[in-house]
């Protein structure tokens, strides 16, 4: 749910990174955090287990700049990927303005991608959202690994509505900002229609 505060001249939007376990959602956020100037970001909060698996969510606020005199602030969240964190994953989607689906390009993770995407659509539906109507980007991550499915085949399997598809290697930052830009642009474009 976008918040527009006329007194503080701010627009606040919520973007959620979704995807199967170990697909690189937190790595996306970590790269954005590491590459952003201190004045444009807040703390990166990570509610993780001792082995660094996201337990509840990661969160970071990011300020992009000013549009029509309003500061645009994006609140970036990741969900826990593992199947058994279903309850907390669902909670994070509440009030979402845009979604990034981070797919793991490795052959053996294809089923996990499909299951997670199905799960995303289901969870959105419980809040009355339709993936087809939401700002949405598909990121094909881990393109540097040897056993990856060709990008076209992945897109055929995972693309839902002609959304932007970004090839990425989040661990080195490739495609990370392109993904963020693609989703943020759609969120701001939606504001035009409101």
């Amino acid at each position, binding site marked *: *749910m*976008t*918040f*527009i*505060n*006329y*007194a*503080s001249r701010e*627009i*606040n939007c*919520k973007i959620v990174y979704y995807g199967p376990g170990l697909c690189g959602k937190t790595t996306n956020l970590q790269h954005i955090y590491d*590459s952003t100037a201190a004045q444009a970001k*807040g*703390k990166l*909060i990570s*509610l993780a287990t001792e082995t660094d698996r996201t337990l*509840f*969510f990661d*969160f970071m*606020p990011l300020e*992009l*700049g000013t*549009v*029509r*005199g*309003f500061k*645009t602030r994006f*609140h970036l*969240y990741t969900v826990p990927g593992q199947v058994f964190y279903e*309850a*907390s994953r669902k*909670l*994070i989607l*509440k*009030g*979402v*303005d845009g979604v990034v689906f981070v797919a793991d390009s490795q052959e053996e993770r294809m089923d996990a991608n499909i299951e997670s995407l199905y799960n995303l659509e289901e969870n959105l539906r419980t*809040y*009355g*959202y*339709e993936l087809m*109507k*939401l*700002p949405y980007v598909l990121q094909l991550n881990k393109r540097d690994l040897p056993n990856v499915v060709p990008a076209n085949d992945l897109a055929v399997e995972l693309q839902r509505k002609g959304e932007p598809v970004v090839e990425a290697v989040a661990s080195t930052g490739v495609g990370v*900002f392109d993904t963020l*830009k693609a989703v*943020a*642009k759609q969120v*701001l*474009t*939606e*504001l*035009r*229609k*409101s």
Partner: protein
Amino acid sequence: MANSPILIREQRYHQIKAVLARLRLDASARLVVLVDKDGQQIAVHGELGELDTTSLASLAAGNVAATGGMAKLIGEREFPTLSHEGERESIHISVIGRVLLLVVFDDRSSLGLVKLRSKQVSQEIARTFAEIERDSQQSSGEGSLPFGEITDEEIDSLFSQP
């Protein structure tokens, strides 16, 4: 988009700030924050110091969402208040419709006083927020947002700086 944006006009914002200021005084609290259930900070009043209120807002919403999930598992609709007591600082959260009223207090106050004062302002906050939601629906229907004419170039320019 799934929901139309929430618009907080200056007058409503100042109304909310005034309620928070009064609550802070009456409850002898350190800080009072109004947060949307989705984790967005709406307004804050009090001794901020170095406190990262954006993170506090996001974590408070996560906290309420998680305990709300637990409530449903045991057959409750939600837990309307949550309290966390620390050695020096404590937090009390009241769920008021779609917003959360978060009070940070220390030994200058007490949980009982904070609970009482929070309850006393909750109706006023609920009423103001209902007005904000009504304003938002009317405004978005009129197409009067300042962003109706944002150009692609303006959006692109946000990303031109590294």
